[in-house]
C-alpha cells in the first residue's frame, strides 16, 4: 500500500479531493492471511468493492492497479456495474498467465501505462497484449521508466488523474 507508484497516485487523488481507497492484499502489511497466488487476492479486491458500494454508497468506481495489483485489480472489472473502467500500470501479462488477461477483458474504458524499459512487464510484448483488448482503450508509454518507476511517480500519477478526469467529464 505504501509502494511508490501506489502512493504517488493515492496522494495525487486525495490532494485533488477525489475519494480513494488503497489496501493491502492478504498477507501484506497489517492485512491478515497469506499470499494465495491470485484468487484469494481477487476475492480481497471484491471485498473492497463491496465495502465501497454497500457501506460507502459509492455509485461509480474506477480501478487503478500496478503490476501484480493491475493483474488482480483489473480482473475484477466485470464484477460490478458500478465499476466504470480501469487503469493498469505495468500489467505483468507474461508471468501471470492468460487467466488474468481474459478476466480483465472488458468493453469499459481502459488505460494501460507502460515503461519502455520494463523487463518484468516486458515492453517488447506490450503491443501484442494491448491489441487483445476491446475498445475503448488507450495507452501511455513512460519514456525511460522500468518496472519500478523510480523518479517517474508524478508522471504516472498525472496520467492516472487525466484518465479519471476523462471518464467523469
Amino acid at each position: 500500500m505504501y509502494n511508490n507508484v501506489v502512493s504517488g497516485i493515492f496522494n495525487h487523488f486525495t490532494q485533488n479531493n477525489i475519494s480513494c481507497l488503497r489496501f493491502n492484499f492478504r498477507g501484506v502489511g497489517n492485512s491478515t492471511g497469506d499470499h494465495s497466488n491470485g484468487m484469494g487476492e481477487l476475492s480481497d479486491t471484491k471485498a473492497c468493492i463491496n465495502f465501497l458500494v454497500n457501506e460507502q454508497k459509492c455509485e461509480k468506481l474506477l480501478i487503478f492497479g500496478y503490476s501484480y495489483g493491475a493483474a488482480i485489480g483489473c480482473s475484477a472489472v466485470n464484477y460490478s456495474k458500478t465499476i466504470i473502467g480501469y487503469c493498469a500500470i505495468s500489467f505483468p501479462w507474461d508471468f501471470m498467465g492468460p487467466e488474468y488477461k481474459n478476466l480483465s477483458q472488458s468493453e469499459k474504458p481502459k488505460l494501460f501505462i507502460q515503461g519502455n524499459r520494463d523487463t518484468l512487464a516486458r515492453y517488447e510484448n506490450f503491443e501484442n497484449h494491448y491489441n487483445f483488448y476491446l475498445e475503448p482503450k488507450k495507452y501511455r508509454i513512460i519514456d525511460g521508466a522500468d518496472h519500478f518507476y523510480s523518479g517517474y511517480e508524478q508522471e504516472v500519477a498525472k496520467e492516472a488523474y487525466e484518465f479519471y478526469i476523462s471518464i467523469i467529464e
Partner: protein
Amino acid sequence: MRGIEKVFINNNDIRLETELFLSSLENLPMATLVCHPHPQFCGI
C-alpha cells in the same frame, strides 16, 4: 475536505488493511487503488 482514515475490511476470515479518503464533493466516481504486493518485490 476530510482526512485519510485507517479502515479494516473483513473478507471472510481475512482482515484487510486499508486507507480511505472520502471527498467532500458529492456525485463523483470513487477511485480504488490496488497495491503491488507480490512478495518477491520490495517497497510494499
